């Protein structure tokens, strides 16, 4: 009897709040995690504000941040001997120096602008030198542009731990800033040790990004057959095989011949595609690229 009354009370309480659970069978317990979770979510939403973005906290804002130790460890982590002053100079951007001067703080350095320029030259020259041993100029230029792109250099920069030790007003630093800092670090390394050492560094960190990539992933002529015709004029495409021509899975095999010699084969869903692919195959062989 008492139990029934309690149940009735519960029902009444629920219906007072404006909702009636007609289909409700049993409630085993109050869910005590609901309110705290909603509160926490509310707090977090207010923290984010209207922009909807969570601003990352810079590591340097933490109490135990030790910039000297971080900069020292950066060089040691890479296994390179840096001149500490040069490395600090490489990490300090002009914008940061300007800001400090505006705030009336004395800064000895005048930023890493010249180091950026120097580092860029070193990276660019070395990559071109290394690639030109294997590839023709067109491909060298394409791969060079791919490797020295801001996105690629900042990718390298972030993963060797530059993001938190760059001295710049913006946080998180922009892609171009990280890429520039990486260039400056390369220049600082060159001045600290030797050019040879520095080139090994570029080889290990920048050139190594080609691992798992094929040349055709980075560079591909837009119209391969026309391009091939430009290199080698006495070529002739021939349809070698075809299958399922009247279906959606049609497949054609085209061979490119020169003087009755088969130079390369290509496949494709149409004859034109197959012809272009055969041309790519020939280009691959002519340029000796993998």
């Amino acid at each position, binding site marked *: 009897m008492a139990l029934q009354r309690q149940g009735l009370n519960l029902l009444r309480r629920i219906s007072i709040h404006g909702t009636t659970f007609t289909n409700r069978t049993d409630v085993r317990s109050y869910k005590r995690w609901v309110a705290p979770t909603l509160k926490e979510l509310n707090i977090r939403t207010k923290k984010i504000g209207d922009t909807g973005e969570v601003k990352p906290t810079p590591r340097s804002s933490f109490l135990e941040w030790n910039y000297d130790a971080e900069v020292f460890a950066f060089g040691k982590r890479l296994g390179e001997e840096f001149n500490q002053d040069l490395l600090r100079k490489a990490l300090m951007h002009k914008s940061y120096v300007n800001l400090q001067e505006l705030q009336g703080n004395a800064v000895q350095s005048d930023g890493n602008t010249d180091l950026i320029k120097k580092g860029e030259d070193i990276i660019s020259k070395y990559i071109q030198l290394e690639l030109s041993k294997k590839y023709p100029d067109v491909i060298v230029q394409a791969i060079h542009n791919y490797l020295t792109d801001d996105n690629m250099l900042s990718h390298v920069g972030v993963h060797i731990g530059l993001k938190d030790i760059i001295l710049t007003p913006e946080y998180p630093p922009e892609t171009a800033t990280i890429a520039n800092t990486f260039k400056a670090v390369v220049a600082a390394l060159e001045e600290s040790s030797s050019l040879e050492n520095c080139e090994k560094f570029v080889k290990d960190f920048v050139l190594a990004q080609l691992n798992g990539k094929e040349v055709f992933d980075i560079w*591909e002529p837009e119209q391969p057959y026309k391009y091939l015709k430009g290199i080698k004029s006495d070529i002739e495409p021939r349809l070698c095989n075809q299958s*399922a*021509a*009247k279906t959606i*899975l049609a497949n054609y095999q085209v061979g490119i011949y020169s003087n009755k010699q088969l130079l390369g084969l290509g496949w494709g869903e149409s004859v034109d595609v197959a012809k272009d*692919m055969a041309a790519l195959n020939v280009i691959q062989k002519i340029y000796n690229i993998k």
Partner: protein
Amino acid sequence: MSSLKRVQQWATFARIWHIYDASWQNPFQSAGLLKKYLMGTYKPIYHPLNDCGDHVVVINSGDIALPGDEWKKRVYFHHTGYPRGASWTLAWQLHKKDPTLVLKKAVYNSMDGNLQRRYTMERLHIYPDANVPADIMKNISNQLATPREVPKRLDHYSEKEVEEFPKIMDYPKNYILR
């Protein structure tokens, strides 16, 4: 993925269309052969879950040759599901009704009964004679070798060939051939 890699994939999974002349062939022996192409088990990329089977167009299925007295002895059983719905059809009767069915059933029965079987059968195109639609003929790029040689009957030889064939004896002039 570079475009070369893309077409490599395309060519790897391309479906080949084979043609097979069933005249004078044993359908049960042919079934084992066709199965290999329909399921794609001859390909290095084969896997039961990999959809890599080829198409096979079979022509002249009306001219198949059953071994021994199979035409008379082989029985195809069917049950409608209703009481007294069972029926037994002899191979020659079934062949008379539909000249593609004996071969079709031979291929169907040669494969394991799994979910793929009916989809694999969809890739088998059987024609009772050599009249194949032009659209189907354009897809074909390979001819499968038949396991049995088609025998040549005496009436297929020209009179001259018969005349010139070396004989071990000549009939006497006055011998009457009945």
